[in-house]
């Protein structure tokens, strides 16, 4: 109850005209950087960070946090309409979200995504309020060994959710793992597959790969069947989801909230892992798993909710421990430290105003984003009325600008073009490019965490089955696998 009155105090802080304006600016800018391919929350926050020096600490974090969760809202738009992920957490949204748009349900898809984002965001703030210290301890329990187990499991989930044939999916994952080794070895600084190119030191640019494999290849594919394909233009009355769609989306949204929040405590790539974990769950629970990949509403609503639900729990390690778990929250840490506010175990007692002001502003911000995004749905969908001959070059231009803006590197543009051509070829032959991209992201962390774990255990491989976190992960995995096998053996449902 004490926290409730503190929250009310926080609300009073959050709705002062200045803070409300800062929250709005953050959300608006966040939506913008989320919508534009290439720019993500990290770039958006880093760009506005200097502006916050002149603000008070509460105002500074309110604005920066607004960018952070605002970008998660915006990221789905281009995924749904154009099959170009605005940021990594929207890759899964491309699959069914874009299929819906192709079938004239783009407006409904955007509306469902916006509502899902709102629910996910709100649930995660509630969780942050109620269980922050508890979850912080759970987060700490995940060491290198448990992280390695989780990443390995995540790769298996990627394989399971892919719509393509198993052999082709495995080929893509293997290729992704190989690509993940490119660059300087993070533990020994040994250059691998760099061919003397400094640009490859950090590995291939993720943004360039994502936009190439999805965006550019999509544009190339659309050239193939530009004459036949005209199902995209939705009528304005189709902007709202039908009752059947709402019925399918609602439970998926709730499950997505929980999955997203739970994965938010996993450091590093939680927002990405949560989306395909949610997708896998929805596919397994669905009465019509065959519809996944063909515009399944649950396949959009679950992951889109999940990536927003990670934003609240991603704040926990920052606010409770003073340790940023993902790069975006590291910027929040900087903003606070510059003002002399040190997040950590003592923040709640030393700076309650900042903490509760931020939490309350996140409620307000999620509401603002919903109000901001719903009218935009009509506008975005109207874009699809543009003929492909105009739309395709415009989108290509935006892709080029987006990729170049990340590190001003022409090398990245070549990566994008090559990935686009490769993606076109792969998709022509029925290979799904999502597992390739996800394997690159996960493979990198998998390798580093395995090697750290083995250093800590002095080469003892049993470290991967020890420790509570690793055992919990393995337990869940074995349980789900057993249920799956059991179901299959009894012939309840065919595996999808």
């Amino acid at each position, binding site marked *: 109850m004490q926290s409730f009155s503190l929250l009310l105090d926080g609300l009073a802080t959050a709705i002062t005209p200045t803070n409300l304006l800062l929250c709005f600016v953050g959300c608006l800018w966040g939506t913008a950087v989320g919508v534009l391919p290439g720019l993500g929350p*990290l770039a958006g926050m*880093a760009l506005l*960070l*200097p502006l916050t*020096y002149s603000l008070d600490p509460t105002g500074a974090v309110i604005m920066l946090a607004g960018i952070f969760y605002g970008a998660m809202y915006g990221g789905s738009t281009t995924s749904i309409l154009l099959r170009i992920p605005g940021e990594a957490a929207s890759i899964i949204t491309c699959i069914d979200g874009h299929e819906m748009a192709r079938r004239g349900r783009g407006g409904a898809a955007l509306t469902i995504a916006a509502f899902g984002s709102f629910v996910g965001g709100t649930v995660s703030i509630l969780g942050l309020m109620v269980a922050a210290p508890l979850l912080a301890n759970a*987060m*700490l*329990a*995940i*060491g*290198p*060994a448990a992280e390695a187990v989780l990443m390995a499991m995540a790769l298996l989930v990627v394989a399971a959710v892919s719509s393509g044939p198993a052999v082709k999916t495995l080929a893509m994952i293997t290729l992704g793992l190989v690509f993940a080794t490119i660059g*300087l070895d*993070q*533990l*020994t*600084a*040994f*250059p691998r597959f760099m061919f003397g190119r*400094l640009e490859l*030191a*950090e590995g291939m640019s993720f943004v360039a790969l994502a936009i190439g494999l999805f965006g550019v290849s999509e544009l190339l594919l659309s050239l193939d069947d530009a004459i036949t394909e005209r199902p995209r233009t939705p009528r304005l009355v189709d902007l709202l989801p039908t009752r059947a769609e709402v019925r399918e989306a609602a439970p998926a949204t709730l499950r997505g909230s929980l999955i997203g929040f739970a994965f938010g405590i996993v*450091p590093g790539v939680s927002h990405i892992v949560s989306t395909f974990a949610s997708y896998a769950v929805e596919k397994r629970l669905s009465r019509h798993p065959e519809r996944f990949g063909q515009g399944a509403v649950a396949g959009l609503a679950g992951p889109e909710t999940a990536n927003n639900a990670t934003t609240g729990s991603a704040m926990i*390690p920052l606010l409770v*421990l*003073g*340790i*940023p*778990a993902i*790069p975006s929250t*590291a*910027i929040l*840490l*900087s903003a606070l*430290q*510059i003002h*002399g506010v*040190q*997040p*950590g*175990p*003592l*923040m709640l007692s030393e700076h309650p105003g900042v903490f509760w002001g931020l939490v309350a502003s996140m409620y307000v911000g999620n509401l603002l984003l919903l109000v901001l995004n719903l009218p935009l749905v009509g506008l975005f969908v109207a874009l699809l009325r543009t003929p492909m001959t105009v739309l395709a070059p415009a989108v290509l231009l935006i892709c080029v600008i987006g990729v170049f803006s990340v*590190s001003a590197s022409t090398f990245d543009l070549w990566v994008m073009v090559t990935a686009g051509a490769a993606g076109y070829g792969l998709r022509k032959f029925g290979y799904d490019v999502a597992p390739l991209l996800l394997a690159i992201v996960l493979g990198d962390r998998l390798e*580093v965490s395995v090697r*750290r774990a083995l*250093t*800590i255990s*002095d080469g003892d491989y049993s470290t991967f089955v020890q420790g509570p976190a690793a055992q919990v992960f393995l337990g869940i995995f074995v349980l789900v696998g057993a249920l799956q096998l059991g179901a299959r053996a009894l012939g309840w449902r065919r595996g999808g």
Partner: protein
Amino acid sequence: MTGTNRSPLWLTALAVLAVAPALVPGAATAQTYPTRPVSLIVPAPPGGGTDIFARQLAELVSTAVGQRFVVENRGGAGGTLGTTQVVAAQPDGYTLGFIWNSPLTTSPHSLTLAYTPDSYRAVMSIGFSSYVLCARADFPAATGAELVAHLKANPSRYTYGNDGVGGTMRLAAERIFRRIDTRVRSVPFAGAGETARAFLGGHIDFYGGSLPPILPHVQAGTAKCLMLTSADANPALPQAAGLQSLGLGEEETVLWWGLIAPARTNPQILSRLEAVFTEAARSDAFRQIMERQGATPRVLGAEATQRLIRSELAALGTVAQAIGLQRQAQ
């Protein structure tokens, strides 16, 4: 293949074309520098001490000069990645590096790098901070002297997290461990934040790194810092022993920060940068920021910083050789 071998004229023409634009406008722009935003590469991910100092300095200098200094984070490989990018950049004053000493004076002993002290020019440096070695609250040693005794009695039993193979913390710690004749297993992380997380979660025994990430946990009583890598004690951490008090004073290795530019940068631009950054670093606002991060302000000019780099590089080279650190990359 045949095209390039056939005519040496080709090469000459290309060389002239490549060099000409670098020479001609260089002299003209030195007067008006900077006419466009300047990239300040920070070879670390956002959020650490180096990043905070760089952003605050960039803000102060941007206001003073009337042109934006934009911080770009290029983390990885113990800071050598971003530093290599600075050194390889056009020496036009529009790409600078705000670095800590590790990629300059430590990494060259374990890695074959594309730079030496001749590849860059130090512009100035702002001050220093000690590294700390911290244990959890229940660790069976309460002072620096007890820690030394405990480590000596239990070689290879404990693990400590550090900022990577090429990092100064690793070398600073190994220097001490070697001197007291024991071994502690090294687990490299991507930064002090990651090290702190693994330490607080109980996955490694000691936190090895800079002060700021661990300070709130010391105040909360979950961690105790027992040893500094500086000779003197630090007022922010009264219970941590300086090396002098342990009789290890000559093994001091600290963390310091400074500004570098590619070697062939116009001297006029360099002295302009030295002046504006020195002024910003001496401001009260910036000194407060440094002290809040547990760092000690000590502004050095270009000459003094360059001397510091060379002497530190030589001194750490001796240590690296003594502890058998090999160059790992080709």
